[in-house]
């Protein structure tokens, strides 16, 4: 049955395609149908490329029929966060300033997806220029959490996670600068990984904070995330900051999954006060499950993590203020003329366009970043934040002497209501308190579902962190935990999500 295929994992779909039980066109069409059925409510997608996706699917079917050897994932469709440049497909970064912009090139990551034969269903919604934790800062309206349409799906990559959680796509590409893959994964009951910094090419990833951004997989299972990670990861000569090595052996680790003798570090500074009771409860159970599976728990302390949020909200705006300067109405994107001005100058057009085209959060961070970099303030703000970053990195290094992986709740709360934190930027920033340290140090992190919180029945996530380049450990531990939790739940967590096609949903 066509509709069932949307419930399958990407690995299962790949198997079915490989055994020729189903065609790529059927798979893609099924997902397009699902999008048509539910995206009116969820709004995960900013652009659906039916023609392009079906054409790619047809091409795969023809080649498979002709006996050509194809990549394992050929024909499995995917959604891509609208921050990645996709040739011929509109790319907005969730902003008005790029409305209608069609890139003349593909991001390296996107080229790899296309080369692997994955039809691209469309581009997913996001907080404008990836600045946010709820997708409410999208200039095109928020995405809604499939678990409760009045609630946020997390951010900045709420679209990708929601698409995956709502079975509109088997998997998706997200990006994570301070938690934008992991936090949405946690609040939507899905899986998301931020690879080691430099592990996945940033060429074509519209930059927010260059030294923090990473693209990664969003999926419903740990194995799927591993499969996608292995396609997109690995050195790219077009990205000077990419690690000169192929993607780590994540698929193997996900399949093997063994935690016997592993030391699990629980970070004292991540998970105490300020974390919702249900979040903490599910976290402690996850830790306990790993102990039962043979791991040992150690408590570690990373005192500089208390300064992580502050350092992050100095470094990110600084780099962003520079990265976003290119949006000036001269070469592409929106051009707005200032009102009531005859014969405006280039400078005036730039300023009018940027005021009209950028949302409030983006403007806030640009101004903040401009300040932090300005002469006289650089040392106290940006300069100092980069030193705190070194300390955070050292704390991680020390922790990883005592533990093989670190665990924490991914986010302090479950999905809050739309509008609840919009008027309080600092409250919004606190959503990333557990995820930010990993970006500052460049270490990899994964979030997978740890269960539903008792008080509101909403998904919670557990975060696994590993030393830089040891992404495989995330998958090894994640696979074990996933299996044990599934046994406890009698199936996947998402099976408990409400039916979006039911009347009144």
């Amino acid at each position: 049955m066509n509709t069932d295929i949307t419930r399958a994992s990407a690995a299962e779909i790949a198997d079915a395609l490989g055994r020729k039980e189903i065609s790529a066109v059927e798979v893609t069409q099924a997902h397009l149908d699902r999008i048509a059925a539910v995206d009116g409510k969820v709004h995960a997608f900013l652009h659906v490329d039916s023609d392009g996706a079906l054409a790619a699917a047809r091409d795969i079917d023809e080649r498979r029929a002709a006996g050509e050897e194809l990549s394992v994932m050929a024909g499995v469709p995917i959604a891509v966060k609208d921050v990645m440049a996709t040739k011929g497909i509109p790319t907005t970064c969730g902003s008005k300033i790029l409305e209608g912009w069609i890139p003349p090139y593909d991001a390296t990551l996107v080229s790899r997806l296309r080369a692997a034969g994955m039809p691209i269903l469309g581009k997913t919604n996001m907080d404008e220029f990836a600045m946010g934790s709820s997708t409410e800062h999208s200039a095109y309206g928020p995405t809604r959490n499939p678990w409760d349409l009045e609630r946020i799906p997390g951010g900045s990559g709420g679209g990708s996670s929601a698409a995956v959680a709502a079975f509109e796509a088997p998997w998706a590409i997200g990006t994570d600068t301070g938690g934008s893959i992991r936090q949405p994964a946690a609040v939507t009951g899905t899986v998301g990984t931020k690879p080691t910094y430099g592990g996945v090419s940033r060429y074509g990833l519209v930059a927010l904070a260059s030294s923090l951004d990473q693209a990664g997989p969003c999926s419903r299972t740990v194995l799927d995330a591993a499969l996608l990670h292995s396609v997109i990861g690995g050195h790219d000569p077009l990205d000077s900051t990419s690690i000169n090595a192929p993607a780590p052996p994540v698929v193997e680790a996900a399949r093997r999954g063994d935690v016997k003798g592993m030391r699990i570090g629980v970070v004292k500074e991540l998970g105490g006060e300020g974390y919702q009771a249900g979040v903490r409860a599910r976290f402690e159970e996850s830790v306990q499950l790993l102990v039962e599976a043979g791991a040992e728990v150690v408590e570690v302390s990373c005192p500089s993590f208390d300064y992580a949020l502050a350092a992050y909200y100095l470094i990110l705006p600084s780099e962003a203020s520079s990265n976003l300067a290119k949006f000036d109405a001269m070469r592409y994107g929106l051009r707005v003329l200032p009102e009531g001005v005859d014969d405006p100058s280039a400078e005036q057009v730039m300023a009018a366009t940027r005021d009209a085209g950028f949302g409030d959060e983006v403007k806030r961070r640009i101004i903040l970043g401009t300040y932090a970099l300005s002469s006289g303030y650089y040392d106290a703000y940006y300069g100092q934040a980069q030193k705190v970053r070194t300390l955070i990195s050292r704390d991680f290094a020390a922790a990883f002497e005592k533990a093989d992986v670190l665990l924490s709740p991914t986010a302090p709360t479950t999905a809050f209501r739309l509008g609840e934190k919009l008027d309080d930027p600092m409250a919004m920033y606190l959503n990333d308190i557990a995820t930010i340290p990993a970006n500052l140090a460049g270490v990899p992190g994964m979030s997978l579902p740890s269960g539903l919180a008792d008080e509101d029945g909403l998904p919670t996530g557990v975060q696994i962190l590993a030393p830089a380049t040891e992404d495989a450990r995330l998958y090894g531990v994640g696979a074990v935990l996933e299996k044990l939790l599934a046994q406890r739940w009698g199936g996947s967590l998402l099976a408990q999500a409400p039916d979006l096609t039911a009347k009144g949903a």
Partner: protein
Amino acid sequence: MSSLSRDDVAHLAGLARIDLSDAELDKMVGELSVILESVAKVQEVAADDIPPMSHPMPLTNVTRPDEVRPSLSADEALAGAPASELQRFSVPRILAED
């Protein structure tokens, strides 16, 4: 140090080429002050002898050979241009001489 006046914000907006309305300016002063107070926390850390970190990964000397690679066509380059003429990007009159 941890507070921004309205004039400061207006000056920064000028540097950042964003034409904020008066209402936006007023709102932003308040918001930024709150945020600045929080992020100023980094100054509590004694870090005199700590080196700043600008890259998480200790890579060096990443270069490419001096070999020509295909460019975009002029059409592709100008495709998104708000205005173009004579195969060039048309921009409004520039005030400042560089």
